[in-house]
């Protein structure tokens, strides 16, 4: 298996270098998507199936969609060629990074971690899957703040001005239409399944939210393409309806309400009553899934207003 790791490591470095080196931006973007896919393989090799799932859905999938949509809006899709100095200087990160990596080899030995503490308290946490326990119980405050980051990334994007709506594609043939009719319900179904199984196996709110966001985005692309640019797609209006916007905040609010309730009931801020922890976590996860999905989709679709 060491051969697989070596090959994977070498490929991923080459792909990353190509992604940054090429002056063809489309190639850059494609390379970045490949980079994300390779990363998820690395995560599998490192026994991290949860992050592998998230990397495929978010790091390669959603980021790829965002990048491609952005690329289609740029007038110039060629960057200046790397200068001779830049080309030669590419050796520096390789050597420096290699030296840095070799100097870290003392860390290969097993070292203290929080693994034992995570497993010892897992019966109290309300879920069986350790990653979900960390995300939604032990370190729930990180996750709450991360939902805030999503929220403010959207607010920040909106604050830039109204030119950010993606103008859509022209469809060639009906393949994508029929494909989306199949995929959108399937994605929603899989999202529900992934959310549910997060309690005892890899999965959970992040992966489910990303899948659901993909469903929204796919539906949006197809609908916008069918309607043409003049008509705003219903799906975009749905996402930005004021009542749905309350759902955007749902994840954050669920965290905060449960967190404060825990404080008032004497379990500490962000603490849950052990007996109800499983149910509370599921409730927060459902709210968080919708928040993540809607905000990620909104980051892609924009609010639909443009200059001119």
């Amino acid at each position: 298996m060491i051969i697989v790791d070596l090959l994977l490591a070498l490929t991923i470095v080459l792909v990353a270098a190509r992604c940054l080196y090429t002056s063809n931006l489309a190639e850059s973007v494609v390379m970045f998507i490949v980079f994300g896919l390779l990363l998820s393989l690395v995560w599998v090799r490192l026994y991290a199936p949860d992050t592998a799932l998230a990397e495929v859905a978010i790091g390669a999938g959603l980021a790829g969609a965002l990048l491609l949509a952005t690329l289609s809006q740029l007038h110039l899709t060629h960057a200046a060629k790397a200068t001779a100095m830049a080309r030669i200087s590419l050796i520096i990160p390789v050597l420096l990074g290699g030296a840095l990596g070799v100097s870290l080899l003392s860390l290969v030995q097993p070292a203290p971690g929080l693994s034992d503490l995570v497993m010892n308290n897992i019966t109290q946490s309300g879920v069986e899957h350790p990653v979900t326990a960390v995300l939604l119980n032990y370190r729930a405050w990180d996750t709450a703040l991360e939902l805030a980051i999503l929220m403010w990334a959207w607010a920040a994007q909106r604050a830039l001005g109204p030119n950010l709506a993606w103008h859509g594609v022209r469809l060639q043939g009906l393949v994508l239409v029929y494909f989306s009719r199949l995929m959108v319900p399937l994605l929603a179904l899989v999202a529900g399944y992934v959310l549910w199984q997060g309690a005892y196996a890899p999965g959970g709110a992040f992966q489910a939210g990303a899948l659901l966001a993909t469903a929204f985005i796919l539906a949006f692309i197809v609908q916008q393409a069918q309607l043409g640019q003049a008509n705003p797609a219903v799906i975009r209006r749905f996402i930005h309806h004021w009542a749905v916007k309350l759902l955007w905040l749902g994840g954050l609010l669920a965290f905060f309400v449960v967190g404060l309730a825990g404080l008032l009931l004497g379990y500490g801020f962000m603490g849950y009553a052990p007996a109800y922890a499983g149910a509370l976590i599921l409730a927060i996860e459902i709210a968080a899934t919708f928040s993540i999905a809607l905000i990620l989709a909104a980051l892609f679709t924009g609010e639909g207003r443009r200059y001119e």
Partner: protein
Amino acid sequence: MNEIAIYLITGSVLFCLGLWGVVMREHLLHKILGVNIMGSAAFMLFLAFAARAEPADAVPHALVLTGIVVAISAMALALALMKRVAKESEQHQATLEDSQ
């Protein structure tokens, strides 16, 4: 050499490569992708450290999941900002050359 050593070195190289992209490439898309590659490199170190334990340490897994969502949020903002920079620039160039 085991797989952890391989990925520690790969992560370090990727971090420096990403930094090279941020510093040496002019186009903003390259800079944005460079930052993301730096982040992925840090995630790789986290997960390599997690893989030392048996079973794998769940805390870094959760941290990386959080980090991935943070990274996509930052990327979405950065791409939107890049579009505005390109729009405002005279030659539609998405670089920082004319901002001094």
